[in-house]
């Protein structure tokens, strides 16, 4: 008697779950869905862009995920994401068949403590300091895999096969932690995105150029990187519309609000 009820209940549960799964699958419209995966540096900008675009076009759903630039490239290559984000220059040999859209630029600032008397360094001096050849500095860096770290290595240290950042550098796991570490130590030197700089630290001029929106835009500040949207082949449909919108005046305004430099 009880057995019957139990079997009955199980059958009902199975049926409900089955229907729910089927219905859930059937109601998803792939047409209005964009997945953006990749660089954690681009992520905040991409999130704001996606949010604003979704508000204007409620039938387009955009998901933004992190993972790092390499994840962005990989996901767009294997088709799990419509847009991959990448936060440093990408050669076309490294990514064949991948279309690149520069949606913003970003300067990487070299920061020191407010009490430090350093105001101006050359790119070579920065390289020497981060290589660990100047013991008067406490070098603060980001963890392995961070987009900002990768861009810094590319732009200053001479790429992956160039000079290594000293092993005795303090490793901090976020932009804010780097800021804190530099703000709390008169000898510290670190690097961070132009978008995240504030008054708690001092930004150093590189080769006499102060990083700012203007100097990044005209290319006179050398330590800069593009924020890229990658698509497999040329973008089409909703994805293209979204990218075009990001490049429009409206989209670029959001880029600027997020602290990145509009293109």
């Amino acid at each position, binding site marked *: *008697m*009880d*057995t019957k009820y139990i079997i009955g209940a199980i059958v009902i549960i199975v049926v409900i779950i089955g229907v729910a799964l089927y219905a859930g699958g059937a109601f998803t419209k792939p047409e209005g869905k964009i997945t953006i995966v990749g660089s*954690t540096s681009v992520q905040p900008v991409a999130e704001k862009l996606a949010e604003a675009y979704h508000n204007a076009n409620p039938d387009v759903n955009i998901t933004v995920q*992190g*993972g*790092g630039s*390499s*994840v962005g490239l*990989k996901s767009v290559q294997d088709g799990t994401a419509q847009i991959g984000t990448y936060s440093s220059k990408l050669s076309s040999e490294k990514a064949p068949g991948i279309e690149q859209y520069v949606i913003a630029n970003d300067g990487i600032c070299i920061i020191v403590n407010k009490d430090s008397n350093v105001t101006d360094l050359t790119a070579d001096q920065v390289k020497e300091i981060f290589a660990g050849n100047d013991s008067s500095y*406490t070098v603060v860096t980001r*963890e*392995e*895999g*961070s987009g900002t770290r990768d861009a810094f290595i590319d732009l200053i240290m001479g790429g*992956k096969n160039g000079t*290594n950042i000293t*092993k*005795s*550098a*303090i*490793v*901090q*796991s976020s932009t804010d*932690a780097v800021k*804190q*570490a530099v703000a*709390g*130590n008169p*000898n*510290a030197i670190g690097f961070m995105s132009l978008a995240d700089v504030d008054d708690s630290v001092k930004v150093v001029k590189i080769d006499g150029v102060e990083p700012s929106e203007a100097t990044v835009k005209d290319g006179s500040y050398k330590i800069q990187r593009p924020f890229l949207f990658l698509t497999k082949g040329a973008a089409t449909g909703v994805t293209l519309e979204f990218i075009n919108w990001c490049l429009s005046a409206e989209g670029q305004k959001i880029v600027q609000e997020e602290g990145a430099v509009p293109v």
Partner: protein
Amino acid sequence: MARNWEEFLVEKVLLLAAISSIIIILLIIGFVIQQGLPAMEQVGPLNFIFGMDWSPSYDIYGVFPMIVGSLGMMALALLFAVPLSIFGAIFLAEVAPKTMRRILKPTIQTLAGIPSVIYGFFGLIVLVPFMRIHFGGSGFSMLTASIILTVMVLPTILSISEDALRSIPLEYKEASLALGATHWQTIKNVIFPAALPGIVTGIILGMGRAIGETMAVIMVAGNTPIIPGSILEPARALTSNIALEMGYALGLHYNALFATGIVLLMMIIVLLVITNYINYKRKVTVGGGYL
């Protein structure tokens, strides 16, 4: 028949609830080993464990500096925390007047409830600059991390030790005092030895928390993947290594982080076995002190 069904069902549900924790632990261990083994094989277990260099961008994976870092921080933290918490526990259990205990005990228990990221943030803002000014260096160091860990494990060891001390039968104390022993002699020779197994349990739990702590350690230890030359130099713990790089890791790097987890797991198991063995040995020599 219905009653039998009920009995059977309840029995099985209870059994399931009891073994679910074991199943979950086995699943986690199984998953960590399955994910970590490819890296262990590719790098070689000995190279992985005793390798001095950790450079994921060049596919070089050696966790020995992190093992030293983890063990060093744990040992230092216990060195500070054990005497503090045992004396604190003796005070609370034997000496402190009732009102004082009513204030002290909840205060100490509050320490245990503070999230580790708060400790880390406090360490980063207050302790790191303090250490830099008074001890030199960058302020990020093994010692700084150990001090934070001390505060974090203190409530665990202290409250378990206090419980152990208080659960000693009153007859022990009465007998000792009746023989003419002073209060301190009674504590030292009767109550403390009898409570030792419980105290050791507290130390084991504290040790587990110290070695497993991630967030607070990341924020104050400096995380350099090299063996520190002194306790005033920065170090990286095994847990920090996983948490720092997990967000980006792909392929072999990803597996290497799980392999770091295997090393951590093995270390904890070895430490548990050792301390349990000591505990077991102690129990025999104390003679009937265990409750």
